């Protein structure tokens, strides 16, 4: 691969002649049904995109190809991979990276940031209420059976004192842009992943577009590991420098790279269940010089597998007695067990009511219209409009267990309708969202593709912090609305502009 010359193409002086459908953007087809983040409907560039458009028009396509290849090789060599467990083997794969950054203005981000902080504050209050007084349930804000019947509800957490009442310290919220507004698609309150790809994309983009990056004035995300460390450390009851570790299921987990990356960047141990020993209601790690106490665990495994004594007894990923140490107050877990009850897809529909109830405020970020199949009206509407809706399992993730009505065959819709009738409480439906599109470099062409966004929010003992960036997922297949990496999605860097 020949070298790419990093030339300042005069990004400070945007080219006014750029337009969709001509020149280097001749393959860039606009569709008025979808908000395009680079161009207005008439093909002229949006104000924020002029510099980017200029850069993309002045860099020869072969150089863009080399940049894309360079970014890919960089990820391969640095091992920025995710693990795929096949039937017979284990393979490492790279999430495809698109080298065109996505842009969000300071004003847009301010709105998102305020909305995310509000949402997380309300959800933490809700979780505390669920596991203590249950006022919101008694007042009918959320149906009692929806909470108590949720598989993620943890009876073991009842009346449990959680340090600083912070149940969710790390949250990854999926946000989509439909038209000119941003809406929350999903809250990930258990073990949200993707932040390492955000950081890896940023490093790669700084390498690929150093002048453009500087010209734009992009908000920095590199301090995320320090923020994460200080956030989780602030929850500790063991002083200012608690002994912290990241708990991973191991290297066959698809997010193992992220676990190792975060542990390394925070300067803490990356432990597996086999490294841990609980003794006398205290958790220890096996070091080469004996057992060493652990005060705080940033756990990246699901509740079920944390402790075979407290939860699933066939788990070999956690440590027997870990939950006992937690209950005894000798260990802090981030996030707390039982947070999944608040990111259930059915409960999602009630989050605006939760915000109003606990904060006495109107939600800043809207929800996506959601029909609960557990309710007769919702089920009837869903069955009548299956062809136009997206149907999801309430506990599903990764793009699995869902039906995209317009893209499904008649037989698939029929099968799903049976599932709905048999177990309606397990499903919700939403309209097919007209996800916004951002410019991408695919197969040597600049074309629009649908994108979403997962910003990360940190909640410490006192402070909240929203990372000015996030994992931006992109549906690289033309016309596809599914952004999951397991379904042909990739990612790209997200630039939050200072001005």
């Amino acid at each position: 691969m020949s070298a790419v010359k990093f030339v300042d193409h005069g990004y400070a002086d945007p080219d006014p002649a750029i337009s969709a459908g001509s020149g280097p953007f001749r393959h860039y087809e606009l569709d008025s049904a979808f908000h395009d983040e680079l161009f207005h409907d008439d093909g002229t560039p949006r104000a924020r995109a002029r510099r980017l458009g200029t850069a993309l028009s002045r860099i020869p396509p072969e150089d863009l190809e080399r940049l894309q290849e360079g970014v890919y090789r960089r990820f391969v060599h640095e091992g920025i991979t995710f693990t795929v467990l096949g039937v017979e083997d284990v393979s490492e794969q790279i999430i495809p990276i698109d080298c065109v950054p996505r842009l969000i203005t300071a004003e847009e981000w301010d709105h998102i940031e305020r909305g995310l902080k509000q949402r997380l504050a309300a959800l933490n209050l809700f979780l505390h209420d669920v596991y203590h007084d249950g006022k919101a349930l008694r007042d009918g804000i959320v149906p009692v059976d929806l909470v108590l019947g949720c598989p993620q509800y943890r009876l073991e957490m009842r009346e449990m004192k959680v340090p600083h009442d912070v149940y969710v310290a790390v949250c990854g919220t999926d946000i989509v842009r439909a038209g000119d507004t941003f809406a929350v698609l999903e809250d990930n309150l258990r073990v949200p992943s993707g932040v390492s790809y955000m950081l890896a994309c940023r490093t790669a983009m700084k390498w690929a577009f150093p002048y453009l990056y500087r010209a734009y004035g992009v908000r920095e995300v590199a301090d995320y590991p320090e923020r994460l460390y200080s956030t989780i450390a602030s929850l500790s009851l063991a002083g200012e420098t608690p002994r912290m570790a990241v708990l991973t299921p191991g290297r066959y987990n698809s997010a193992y790279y992220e676990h190792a990356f975060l542990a390394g960047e925070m300067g803490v141990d990356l432990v597996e269940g086999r490294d841990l020993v609980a003794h006398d209601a205290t958790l220890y790690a096996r070091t080469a010089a004996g057992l060493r106490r652990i005060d705080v665990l940033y756990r990246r495994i699901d509740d079920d597998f944390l402790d075979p004594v407290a939860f699933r007894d066939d788990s070999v990923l956690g440590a027997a007695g870990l939950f006992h140490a937690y209950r005894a107050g000798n260990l802090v877990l981030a996030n707390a067990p039982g947070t999944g009850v608040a990111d259930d897809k059915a409960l999602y529909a009630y989050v605006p009511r939760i915000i109003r109830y606990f904060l006495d405020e109107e939600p800043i970020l809207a929800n996506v219209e959601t029909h609960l199949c557990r309710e007769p009206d919702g089920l009837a509407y869903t069955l009548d409009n299956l062809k136009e809706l997206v149907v999801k399992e309430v506990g599903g993730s990764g793009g699995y267990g869902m039906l995209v009505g317009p893209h499904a065959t008649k037989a698939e819709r029929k099968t799903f309708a049976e599932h709905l009738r048999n177990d309606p409480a397990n499903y919700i439906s939403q309209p097919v969202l007209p996800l916004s599109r951002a410019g991408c470099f695919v197969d040597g062409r600049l074309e629009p593709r649908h994108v979403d966004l997962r910003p990360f929010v940190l909640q410490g003992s006192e402070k909240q912090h929203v990372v000015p960036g996030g994992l931006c997922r992109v549906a690289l297949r033309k016309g596809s609305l599914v952004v999951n990496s397991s379904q042909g999605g990739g990612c790209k860097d997200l630039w939050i502009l200072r001005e």
Partner: protein
Amino acid sequence: MMLARMAANFYWLGRYAERTENTARLLEYQLTRLVDADADEIALGWRVAYRALSQSPPQAPADVDEAEAFLIADAYTLTGGLVEDTTNPASMISCWGMARENAREIRPRLPLRVWVCLNQGFLWLQETEFADAWGEGPAALVSRAIDRLRLFAGVVDANMARDDAWRFLELGRYVERLQQQIVLLDVWDRIARPDGDGLTLSWADLLRVCGAFEPYRRDRSLTLQRSSVLGFLMRNPEVSRSLHYATDRIESTLQGIDPAGGRPPLAAPHRLALRISAALELDPGEADAAPDAAPDAEAGEPFGPLTRDSRTLHDLVQATYVDYPVTAGLPT
């Protein structure tokens, strides 16, 4: 102090990296001889290399003995089995892969440049078409592999703090070297029979395989006798592939790992390392005590005690730092 599991991963990273290079060095020696040695000498070289790497001889009819089996086998297949055969756990690709897998487990403690260097090397070997590389010259591929492995050693040296992670990596490297060198000296002495009659390999070649020919020539002129060569490769403190050098490094890394800083009571691996070192230093051993003639291959095991001690050393490292009973590790 680092996690016991990670200490083991660093240790095995060091072992597998060293093992890969050891295989590559032996192969490089053998493959360069293909140009001018006759068929019998080449077959003997393969036999020595396979024995030194604890590899089974190639499959042959029941009535064919080991020496003849190597005469029948072709160099391409024998080399491929040690380079690219992923079903052979001792091949270079397997060992490099295991080094990489251990490195994956310790990514949080491994400097990025170290990982990238190791990973690039592995991916390079994995993506290399063995048949094409053979066409460029049999030794070219392993020579490039040696360069990459030494680059890796240099990147480790330049980028890692001298902490426990580095000590366990060094410990693994030198325990592996000690074991491999003992086997090599033993095999060369018993099978290559440099001072014997008939088909032999030379002492000079043993020194070359160990990268010790030039230091030996400077130190002892070109008097290539069994006791002198073996003594040099056992006790010279300056040659990096001497048993003394490896033991010395093992002893110093164990001293660093020891929480008491090497003060008594010493941990069991440390005590054994000192004993091996003393045995090398003070007891000339059977190699020197024996007359300057090659021993009968069946007659004895001049390197037997050292072989056993070097294996025990590994067992003690595992038992002391990794697999200790939980009750022994509880804080007092």
